[in-house]
């Protein structure tokens, strides 16, 4: 039978671009744009002591880049193992969990004891707790028979609200002075990042992403659905557990650096899927990391330099991300 459809013109000229060419085009475009944005951020209206200003901005941009990559890549892998395009570690309440753990540590150990602990030690302890509790809370949800998506979304929202509620309650029970110290810990922002912490975070993020990168082909197979993945010899439970643990590490690290940004991961990963349809996880990792960095660096630049700090970056990102979230829901992705 002659295949009539194959002769029909399909879509625009862009649709004819092979996935390889499309990926190359976007990777180069985003790469150049990201480098330009970083250069602009570092050099825009530099005044006074050059070395001092550059170090200050360099630390800040380091934090932004780390955070962007950590959130983008963890969201990508998380969505694959949880077999949906709506849930992200943040939406499931992972960053709220991190804030809760910080508060509980201050509450049980006392602010002074906890804050005077060397920063890297504190950080590693927090991350270990974060991984433990995340696996405890989320593993059963995603390794047993996958439940309905709206049920999991609901569970995530309930968990996040619960974590924030308990965090607030414990905060109120603290001594005012301890509470202030706690706030300094949990409301870190791009503007004040400790260089030691930054180095530790860079190491942890690099190691986690290296593991996810090695898993990229396995993640492609996981995207075929649980049963097909098992049939192709993937240990579904083990890979899901690994990705959940790595997501906990990445989200914890980026929350420690800059605080929670709920919808950022969703925004970046949805866009990445749109830009390179048909790409596997190797390419998706590259595109989402570049896209995430570009969005955060450019956003921070606009907020700081052009709007004169009249708003904060998280407000802007949450606004755009929230709109994408609603659009995805409306498009019927939540079926």
């Amino acid at each position, binding site marked *: 039978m002659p295949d009539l459809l194959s002769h029909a013109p399909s879509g625009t000229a862009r649709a004819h671009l092979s996935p390889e060419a499309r990926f190359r085009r976007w990777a180069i475009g985003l790469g150049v744009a990201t480098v330009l944005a970083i250069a602009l951020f570092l050099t825009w209206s530099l005044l006074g002591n050059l070395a001092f200003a550059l170090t200050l901005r360099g630390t800040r941009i380091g934090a932004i880049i780390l955070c962007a990559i950590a959130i983008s890549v963890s969201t990508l892998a998380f969505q694959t193992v949880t077999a949906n395009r709506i849930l992200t570690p943040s939406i499931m309440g992972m960053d709220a969990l991190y804030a809760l753990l910080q508060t509980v540590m201050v509450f049980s150990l006392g602010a002074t004891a906890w804050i005077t602990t060397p920063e890297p030690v504190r950080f590693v302890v927090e991350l270990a707790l974060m991984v433990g509790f995340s696996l405890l809370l989320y593993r059963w949800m995603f390794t047993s028979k996958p439940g309905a998506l709206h049920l999991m979304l609901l569970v995530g929202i309930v968990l996040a609200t619960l974590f924030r509620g308990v965090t607030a309650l414990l905060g109120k029970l603290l001594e005012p002075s301890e509470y202030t110290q706690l706030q300094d810990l949990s409301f870190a922002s791009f503007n004040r990042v400790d260089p030691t912490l930054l180095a530790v975070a860079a190491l942890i993020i690099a190691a986690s992403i290296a593991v996810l990168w090695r898993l990229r082909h396995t993640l492609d197979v996981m995207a075929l659905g649980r049963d097909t993945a098992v049939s192709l010899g993937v240990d579904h439970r083990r890979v899901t557990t690994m990705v959940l643990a790595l997501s906990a590490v990445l989200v914890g690290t980026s929350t420690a650096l800059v605080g929670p940004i709920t919808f950022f991961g969703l925004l970046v990963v949805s866009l990445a899927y749109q830009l390179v349809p*048909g790409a596997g996880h190797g390419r998706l990792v590259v595109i989402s990391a570049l896209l995430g960095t570009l969005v955060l660096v450019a956003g921070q630049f606009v907020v700081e330099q052009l709007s004169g700090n009249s708003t904060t970056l998280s407000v802007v990102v949450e606004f755009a991300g929230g709109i994408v979230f609603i659009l995805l829901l409306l498009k019927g992705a939540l079926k």
Partner: protein
Amino acid sequence: MISIENVSQSYDAEVVVDNVSAQIGPGLTSIIGPNGAGKSTLLGLIARLQPLQSGRVSVGGLDVSSTPSKQLARTLAILRQENQVSLRLRVRDLVTFGRFPHTGGHPTSEDRAHVEAALERLDLTSLADRYLDQLSGGQRQRAFIAMVLAQDTDYVLLDEPLNNLDMKHSVAMMQLMRTLVDEDGKTVVVVMHDINFASSYSDSLLALKRGALVAHGSPEQIMDTDVLESVYDMRIPIHEVDGTRLGLYFGSPQGARIS
């Protein structure tokens, strides 16, 4: 040889598979039975998609509960009824995944040859560069079966492979199963609803009812009015046409009663 020993499975106190023991030898075996008989569950258990609650299953001498999943994936392939893919894939990409158990994510030229052969066998060569979401239900079904063939395992398990297929493609699919058995020496197990398709092409039939094994034998043995009544609770007259036993269930007086 697939060996099933005392396998039982229940979900929320409801018994889905009830103490089934069977030896499935080489050839084409069809699992038949009414809705809710546990056919798909049993197939999934053989392919270690769900952990076994009790009993033992071995495929080609490999215990499915203890053999590493990757090793099993070179012996056994299964295709479920519903397959949703969250990546946007071209047909050739999907079929290439069949080679994953052999070479991970880095297909060699030998893998590519397997992929092209599988595409060819399912008449998909002209569609190989199409995206899955541009295909009809039947074409998608064939693409997934091509993936299973590319996996090149001795044991192939298919859950209702005739789903979504028209008459022509159904017949072609069953003929392909026969070639897999007769020429490639594979053991093929399929879940089937149409007893006449099952009877015409299978070497043996395995009948389940409410989770229990009711009958297991050759099409001649199972395609019998009394045996089928014990499986389906309806009397199906059997007619032999050109050497094949066919059940004419359309006019069965009890066929219309839905209990």
